[in-house]
C-alpha cells in the first residue's frame, strides 16, 4: 500500500489537474457560444451560394463547354482530400473522428488503385496522418497565428486548391470537417467540392427557373465557382471551430468529473490507511503494556 505521504501528494496533484480542466471547460464554454453563433450566422451565405450555383448549372445548355470546376476534369484518377482539423489538442474525439472518417475514405481510394493527395489544414490532423500517409501529404496549412476564423484564411486555402486544379494536379477534391450539431454531437462530414456535387439536389429539385444574367452566364459561373469553394471551406472552418469548442467542453467536463471521483477515492484510501496506522500503533502499545 502506498504510504500516507504518497497518497497526499497524489490527491493534491489530481486536485490541481482538476482545476486546470475546470478552467479549460469554462474557457471552451465561453468560446463555444461565440463560435456557435458564427457558425449559425455563416450558414445562410454558403447555402444561398450553393443554391445560386445549382440554379445556374441546371440551366447550362452546353455541358461540354461548362467550366471545369463545375463538371470536373472528366477523370477520377487523382483524388485530393482536404482534411480540416484543429490546431490544439485536448478536445476529446474531435480530431480523431475526422481522421477516422478520412482514413476510411483514403483506404477506399487506394484500394481502387487511384492516386491520393492530401492537404491538411490544422496541425493536429497533420500529426495524426503523417505516420501513415506521409508520402501523400502535399501541403500542410495551419492558422495558428490567426485568432479568429476569417474569410481571408479560407480564401487562401481555396486559392491553393483552385491553383492546383488548374495545374491539373488532381481530378476530384473532397473536404473533411466536423459539422456542429449540438454541444455533444458533432458529425464528421465529407463534402465533394470539385466537381461540384450538392447533397441538396435531391431535396429540392426545383423547377428550372429562367434567369436573366448580367453579365453572361458563363462569366458569372467562372467568377462564382472559385468563390463558392472558398465559401464552402469557410463554412467548414466555422463549423469546425464550433465543434472543436463543443467537443473540448464535453471532454473537459468529463475530465473534471473523473478527477473529482478520483479525489474521492484517494481520500477514502488515505483515511483508511491513516486509521490502519493508528490502530497498528495502539495495538503495539497495548500488547507492549500487557507483556509487562
Amino acid at each position, binding site marked *: 500500500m502506498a504510504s500516507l505521504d504518497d497518497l497526499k501528494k497524489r490527491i493534491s496533484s489530481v486536485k490541481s489537474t482538476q482545476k486546470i480542466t475546470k478552467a479549460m471547460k469554462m474557457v471552451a464554454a465561453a468560446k463555444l457560444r461565440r463560435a456557435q453563433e458564427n457558425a449559425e450566422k455563416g450558414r*445562410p451565405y454558403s447555402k444561398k451560394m450553393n443554391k*445560386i450555383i445549382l440554379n445556374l448549372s441546371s440551366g447550362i445548355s452546353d455541358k461540354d463547354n461548362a467550366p471545369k470546376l463545375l463538371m470536373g476534369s472528366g477523370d477520377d484518377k487523382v483524388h485530393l482530400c482536404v482534411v480540416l482539423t484543429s490546431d490544439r489538442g485536448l478536445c476529446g474525439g474531435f480530431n480523431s473522428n475526422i481522421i477516422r472518417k478520412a482514413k476510411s475514405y483514403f483506404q477506399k481510394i487506394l484500394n481502387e488503385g487511384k492516386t491520393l493527395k492530401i492537404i491538411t489544414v490544422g496541425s493536429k490532423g497533420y500529426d495524426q496522418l503523417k505516420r501513415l500517409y506521409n508520402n501523400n501529404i502535399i501541403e500542410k496549412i495551419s492558422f495558428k497565428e490567426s485568432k479568429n476564423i476569417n*474569410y481571408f484564411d479560407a480564401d487562401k486555402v481555396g486559392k491553393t486548391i483552385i491553383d492546383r486544379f488548374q495545374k491539373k494536379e488532381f481530378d476530384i477534391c473532397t473536404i473533411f470537417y466536423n459539422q456542429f450539431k449540438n454541444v455533444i454531437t458533432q458529425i464528421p462530414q465529407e463534402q465533394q467540392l470539385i466537381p461540384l456535387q450538392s447533397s441538396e439536389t435531391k431535396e429540392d429539385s426545383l423547377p428550372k427557373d429562367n*434567369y436573366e*444574367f*448580367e453579365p453572361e452566364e458563363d462569366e*458569372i459561373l467562372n467568377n462564382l465557382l472559385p468563390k463558392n469553394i472558398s465559401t464552402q471551406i469557410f463554412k467548414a472552418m466555422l463549423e469546425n471551430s464550433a465543434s472543436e469548442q463543443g467537443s473540448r467542453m464535453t471532454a473537459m467536463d468529463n475530465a473534471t468529473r473523473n478527477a473529482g471521483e478520483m479525489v474521492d477515492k484517494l481520500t477514502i484510501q488515505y483515511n483508511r490507511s491513516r486509521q490502519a496506522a493508528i490502530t497498528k500503533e495502539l495495538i503495539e502499545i497495548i500488547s507492549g503494556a500487557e507483556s509487562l
Partner: protein
Amino acid sequence: MSEEFKLEIISPEKSFFSKDKVTEVVIPGYEGEMGFLKDHISLISFLKPGIIKVFSKDGEELFFVEDGIAEFKENDLSILTSSIFNLKNKDKNYIEKLIIKSEEELTKENLDDQKRYLINHKIDSLKSIN
C-alpha cells in the same frame, strides 16, 4: 395589393440585413445601376463597387458594397457580398481613408484594365457619398 418584397443581404460572417417589406431596391449592377420593384423578372447579377439603396415605408437606407452577387427570384431579393457597410454608421473620415487606400491601389503596376476600371469606379462612388 401590396407593392413590397423581401430583401436579404448576407455576408459570409452573418446575415447582414434583412427586411420583409421593402418597396424598392437600387443596386450597382455589373452593367449599370439597377432598380428592383415587386414582380421583377428572375435575375442574377454581379455587383460592382457602389451604393445599395433600400427604400421602404420607414425611409431610405444606404449601404456601400465592393463586390457581390444579387439574385432576384419570386419577390425575394438576396444579395451575397463579402464587403459591405451601412453608410449611416460610418463617418466621413472612414470614407476618406477608403478613398486614399484605393487611390494607392491604383498606383500599383500589374493592374489589368478591368481592375483599374473597378477601382476607379469605387473611388467615384465613394466620392459621391460626401
